[in-house]
């Protein structure tokens, strides 16, 4: 890459970080269709295949549906397969995504989080990936370009583990992460090779031992196969932790496994985030701490499997919890909020919990906005004892709304 600064450190965008991570993981097959803001990932990968620095088959497809189908064909017989998409493209893959997870194909996909039409928008929120929470894919949300690169490498190892065999989606906030530039440390190829073993599929294409693949089931067996998928996703939690620890030993960076907590040990007010907004929230927490307010932060790294036990351990003692959702499940509330409350419901204490809907369609979320969220949490604890408070709130709404 021309922007190289030294042997190890480069100044690159989040999209380029993913492309470099993919090259280090040595996939056999890449099939993808370009869509803003993912395009740069597949442009870089196609250049790497063209210049020979990545020995992979790059399959030009006519749609995201075909991209997913081609990745499935490759993964089904033991090839390491990668694809990338965003927004409408992700939804066009939806049918294949359930197919891939049901077929236990450990495809790795990068998704550039982007709003869904209508109104048409190329800017970021989490509606695309959250609408695919039930598709049976592992979902991780990264905070910066370094984490994007590192998780691309970790993703293959987690997905291909014999106990997991589940496809893996790496989510980067569109533009905020995909198009901004950061200094990123590039791991040594030899170290990545030792970290990432060769994928051994149970379904190798073989004339000696032919397999019948992707069969149907009657109601007598279908539920068992779906339970298997669920069990593999739950078992993935341990693998996620051990792979993250192993990654830390080899590369000197680890991310806390299922979630990352910041100043939660003695916190009164905790905000739960996913993705790049965590970086902004860290600064807000620093500011509040300097003013003596016991603010804490939980970055949910994985949304599937969901870090319920880790969440209870990190936020068990706080006075109030806020959840920032870059999405609304219309007619109810933010989906992350629903998931968080479900995890907390297993605790004996009942928390004050408030949902903050923010950043829809790329709306900015500032440090000041997040400080305001903590102020809302504080007020809800002191005022909320006497009167009811709004459970779902909208950050930075441009106009007055009733209710």
């Amino acid at each position: 890459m021309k922007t190289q600064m030294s042997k190890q450190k480069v100044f690159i965008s989040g999209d380029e970080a993913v492309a470099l991570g993919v090259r280090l993981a040595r996939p056999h097959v890449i099939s993808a269709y370009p869509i803003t803001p993912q395009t740069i990932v597949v442009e870089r990968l196609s250049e790497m295949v063209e210049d020979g620095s990545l020995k992979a088959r790059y399959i030009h497809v006519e749609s995201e549906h075909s991209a997913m189908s081609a990745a499935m064909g490759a993964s089904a017989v033991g090839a390491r397969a990668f694809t990338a998409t965003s927004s409408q493209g992700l939804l066009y893959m939806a049918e294949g995504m359930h197919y891939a997870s049901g077929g236990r194909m450990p495809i790795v996909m990068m998704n550039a989080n982007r709003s869904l039409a209508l109104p048409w928008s190329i800017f970021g929120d989490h509606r695309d990936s959250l609408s695919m929470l039930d598709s049976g894919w592992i979902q991780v949300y990264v905070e910066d370009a370094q984490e994007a690169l590192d998780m691309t490498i970790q993703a293959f190892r987690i997905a291909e583990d014999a106990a997991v065999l589940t496809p893996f989606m790496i989510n980067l906030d569109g533009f905020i992460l995909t198009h901004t530039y950061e200094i990123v440390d590039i791991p040594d190829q030899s170290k990545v090779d030792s970290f990432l073993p060769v994928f051994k599929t149970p379904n190798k294409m073989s004339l000696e031992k032919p397999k019948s693949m992707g069969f149907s089931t009657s109601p007598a067996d279908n539920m068992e196969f779906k339970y298997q998928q669920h069990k593999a996703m739950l078992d993935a939690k341990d693998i996620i932790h051990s792979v993250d620890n192993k990654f830390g030993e080899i590369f000197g960076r680890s991310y806390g496994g299922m979630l990352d907590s910041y100043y939660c040990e003695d916190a009164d007010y905790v905000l739960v985030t996913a993705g790049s907004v965590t970086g902004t929230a860290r600064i807000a927490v620093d500011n509040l701490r300097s003013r003596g307010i016991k603010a804490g932060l939980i970055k949910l790294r994985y949304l599937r499997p969901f870090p319920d036990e880790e969440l209870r351990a990190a936020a068990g003692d706080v006075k109030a919890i806020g959840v920032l959702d870059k999405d609304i499940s219309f007619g109810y509330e933010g989906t992350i909020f629903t998931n968080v409350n479900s995890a907390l419901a297993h605790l004996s204490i009942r928390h004050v919990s408030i949902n903050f809907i923010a950043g829809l369609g790329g709306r900015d979320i500032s440090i000041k906005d997040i400080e305001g969220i903590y102020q809302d949490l504080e007020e809800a604890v002191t005022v909320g004892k006497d009167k009811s408070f709004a459970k779902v709130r909208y950050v930075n709404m441009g106009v007055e709304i009733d209710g």
Partner: protein
Amino acid sequence: MLKPEIKNYVTPKHIRDYPTGPSFEAGHLVSINAGWRTFKPVVDINVCTGCYQCYLLCSDGAISKTDNKKIEFDYSFCKGCGVCAHECSFNAISMVKEELAK
């Protein structure tokens, strides 16, 4: 006959008894596949010339050659589609209602 033999189906007792995902060794048949047939093809061996047109056209590979250069049906897999009877140039094959067939 290249047809795989019918194997005994062992009912899974534990989730581990299932294969990982819906893939398994090819040709592992545990039941016959002809349950929905209404008419079955019956060949008149005296009329059959052994031209093997039906053998080539059977969509399910349920017709095989016999030693005396005639044909026979594998009723465990024949679906009763009637292509063989329709295509037979010598009218050696007739479709007979299941309960009326011997």
